[in-house]
């Protein structure tokens, strides 16, 4: 099991409590084995889909076959440490506006698993401190 979790908030949803990203062990093994494509492969797919949503054509949307196949055909980036894999995962699975822009306080933090409160009532009241 990963030593890490990622706590994040969405500045576009200020009423939403802090969320917790939980890495998959199977995916981490792939990352450590060097089997991941460049992160830009996923961003290209996300951009195309977001554009389809914005233009109201998501119902019939299909990825460009070449861009989709790049997930397996693009050159691999090589083995990552667990810490590097978590950073990669942040950029892949957390919405981009949360980690790519500066706010007046942190919007995400990578923490040790045991640092995440297991009590839901406590976590629902959480805010990420500077």
């Amino acid at each position, binding site marked *: 099991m990963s030593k890490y979790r990622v706590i994040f908030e969405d500045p576009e949803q200020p009423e939403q409590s802090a969320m917790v990203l939980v890495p*998959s*062990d199977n995916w981490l093994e792939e990352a450590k084995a060097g089997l991941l494509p460049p992160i830009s492969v996923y961003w290209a797919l996300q951009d195309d889909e977001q554009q389809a949503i914005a233009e109201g054509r998501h119902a019939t949307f299909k990825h460009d076959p070449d861009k989709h196949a790049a997930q397996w055909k693009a050159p691999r980036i090589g083995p990552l440490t667990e810490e590097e894999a978590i950073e990669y995962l942040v950029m892949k699975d957390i919405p981009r506006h949360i980690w790519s822009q500066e706010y007046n306080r942190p919007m995400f933090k990578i923490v040790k698993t045991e640092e995440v409160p297991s009590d839901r009532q406590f976590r629902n009241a959480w805010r990420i401190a500077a």
Partner: protein
Amino acid sequence: MATIKLQGNTSGSGSIILTAPNTNSTRTITLPDQDMALGGAGSLEAWVNFKGTGTISIFDSGNVSSLTDIATGRYNTNFSSALASANYATSFDNTSYHPNNVSVNSSLEGGPNLGTVVALKTTSTVRQTVGTNGGNFDTAQCSVLVAL
């Protein structure tokens, strides 16, 4: 010693292609001891089985890079590899235990409008909501199946 026999079809000239996995692993396909025809109705694209209480954790998964614990009874399943289309089928399940013995159900989160669903069911992620008629609820075991 078993033999392998490849047989063409007189009704068509299509090819059989076996593609190796995208890892250095050797994978074995073991067929059942009976005649059968493989269906062409798509395939399981992703699955996950996880603990939804406390600090959530993944028991096991396939093509899932992470889960996002959004709030009580609300979870995103994030796919390792994006799917080709967002028009996939989903199945959500959960353990039924609730302290007051009311039923607990899982479903795709979304409002009555298709537009509400769109942002929560993309080729990269899908959101599950678990709850009773009294509100969202965390259960000990949840699962998600995605087929396309």
